[in-house]
């Protein structure tokens, strides 16, 4: 539940078993020796769903696959396998039907299964906000040109006047007021926070259903982060879009998101209500992540921070067998010491992400529900 409670609508996205593997280029010698092809398994079997107006958060450390997951929904990375069923807006659906796409029952289309030409109308419905407001805006375009481009691409607004009106309205929506002061400026004339609001305006001007927001405030100063988060929350209230919010900052996730999914090495290890997960994490990795975050409280200075985690993140080419977290897991270490059944289970079998009640899911053999879901008990 995010800071502002809001009623969520129907389901609009179902990601099932998403895998994005990037091939590693082999050297000539490796080819001659017939070494097997290697892959960076950036996303390695991710499933989740999202509802209308929901802010769903992917959190995790760098390299856990959260950004790749977000990008795959806009088909910006080649997907290895899996499905992403999306329910477009009505107008988009009509356009798709004209192009000969037949939606499945309930109006779903599989994002990864559409040919590029037929995917274009869907792009209007799924937009992205990037992390770096200094790199994501074309420095040679005026603000009005930056915002007009998506309108031209998607054929929104019949005349120049109509488009300008929409541009002004959108700038006001993101609190760049008076809008007339901004339309003729170039990005370099704006501050970081203002640029990020232009990037948000560009994403929402086509009235998307889903916005992938990749670390939208992490490059901004703390004093203006809150303002950008507020703009995002207000836009959701006014326009009813959903956000796939990608961040490494659990405190921000707790503030803005309804639900969060914690990722580790390409998989979701825990999923559920944002505040519940942070108040009471179930997966040993989530526990370690939360223990590591420095909360602004001078009392933290007194002791050393206890970190219930061992070693470092392995690379995504050689993912450990069984539960991919087990080599770093303190619970597994204890199981080995005590000689419990987990000592054999964790390094052999990958735990499924199973429901443990109250919409909470976790992928760890410590939980009975997970063992039951795998048919082990």
């Amino acid at each position: 539940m995010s800071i502002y409670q809001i009623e969520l609508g129907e389901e609009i996205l179902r990601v099932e078993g998403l895998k994005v593997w990037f091939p590693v280029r082999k050297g000539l010698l490796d080819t001659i020796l017939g070494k097997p092809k290697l892959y960076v398994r950036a996303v390695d079997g991710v499933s989740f769903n999202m509802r209308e107006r929901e802010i769903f958060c992917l959190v995790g450390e760098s390299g856990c696959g959260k950004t790749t997951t977000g990008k795959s929904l806009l088909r910006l990375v080649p997907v290895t396998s899996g499905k992403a069923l999306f329910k477009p807006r009505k107008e988009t659906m009509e356009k798709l039907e004209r192009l000969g796409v037949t939606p499945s029952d309930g109006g779903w289309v599989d994002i990864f299964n559409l040919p590029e030409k037929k995917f274009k109308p869907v792009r209007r419905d799924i937009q992205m906000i990037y992390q770096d407001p200094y790199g994501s805006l074309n420095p040679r375009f005026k603000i009005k040109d930056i915002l007009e481009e998506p309108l031209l691409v998607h054929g929104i607004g019949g005349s120049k006047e109509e488009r300008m009106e929409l541009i002004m309205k959108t700038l006001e929506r993101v609190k760049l007021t008076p809008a007339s002061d901004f339309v003729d400026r170039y990005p370099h004339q704006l501050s970081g926070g203002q640029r990020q609001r232009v990037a948000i305006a560009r994403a929402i001007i086509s009235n998307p259903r889903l916005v992938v927001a990749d670390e939208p405030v992490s490059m901004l100063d703390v004093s203006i982060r809150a303002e950008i988060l507020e703009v995002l929350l207000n836009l959701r209230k006014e326009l009813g879009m959903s956000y796939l919010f990608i961040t490494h900052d659990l405190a921000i996730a707790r503030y803005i998101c309804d639900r969060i999914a914690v990722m580790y090495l390409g998989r979701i290890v825990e999923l559920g209500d944002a505040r519940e997960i942070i108040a009471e994490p179930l997966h040993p990795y989530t526990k370690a992540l939360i223990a590591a975050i420095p909360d602004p409280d001078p009392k933290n200075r007194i002791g050393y921070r206890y970190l219930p985690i061992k070693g470092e993140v392995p690379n995504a080419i050689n993912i450990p067998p069984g539960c991919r977290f087990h080599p770093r897991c303190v619970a597994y270490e204890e199981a080995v010491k005590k000689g419990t059944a987990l000592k054999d289970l964790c390094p052999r079998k990958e735990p499924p992400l199973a429901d443990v009640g109250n919409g909470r899911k976790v992928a760890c053999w410590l939980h009975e529900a997970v063992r039951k879901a795998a048919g082990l008990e």
Partner: protein
Amino acid sequence: MSYVLEINNLRTYFFTLRGVVRAVDGVSLKLRKGETLGIVGESGCGKSTLAWSMMKLVPPPGRIVSGSIKIDGIDITRMSESEVRRKIRWRKISMIFQGAMNALNPVYKVGDQIIEPLIVHGKMEKEKALSVAANLVKAVGLPEEILERYPHELSGGQKQRIVIAMAMAMEPDIIIADEPTTALDVVVQAQILNLMKKLHRERGISFILITHDLGVVTELSERIAVMYAGKIVEYASADEIFEKPLHPYTQALIRAVPRLKGDIHRLEYIPGTPPDLRRPPPGCRFYPRCPRRFEPCDKEEPPLQEVEKDHWVACWLHVRR
């Protein structure tokens, strides 16, 4: 009480073609031996320039214009470069530069990079330098074998430990750490902060931690200086800064950060942007964005005054004229 560091009315300006940028504009600061200090502020507030000034390494077109920086009672602003190099830099005060872990030379082994200053500055024989380097890497929690590795074989956390070991090489009293954990993931960040705590406790190193992250700063700093637009606006113990902040900027900054525990409050933000340091506003530099501004604020600049014991603030709400 003796101070290891005493900065008095320091001004460091950058003389650019487009005007004079007053990056550090009248900063005064005192640090007792063995104390840790955090300097907090947003990008462009002058915190890194302040750090470079303390090392006397301000890059051109910047230079220290006036004021003094006394390290162990000696004013380094009056020293020649060769004297600073011989007596002060790396020996009395050293620095972990922002992004230094990515500036390790990729074609040299880690060990060779650590012993170079020991041989050049410390006039050590190679054998001696290698044994010192071995002790240094052990002190930062790395195995001795790492000296034989190249930087690309190391993780981010390991590289940052190497950079800390290098800063410790000449056994300085003060180590400035400029955003030492910004590029690291939270788990690694916590490990590095634990290490810095340990070095402070066991070796008495005074860390000066420069960061924009209020969470990070509280992990290590006994005292905190809050900077805004080239000036220190508040300077007090970490407990006071968080429990009883006096300056409206400090108050706003604390309320702008989401917390991991407790109730969720609506975050506050500071409207507007920091001033252009080429043309700072007259009076208090924060007044255009300040929710509590009143009559004197846009006319006269408030001095940094000790309003309670060891609690300094530069705001007309508290400062007596």
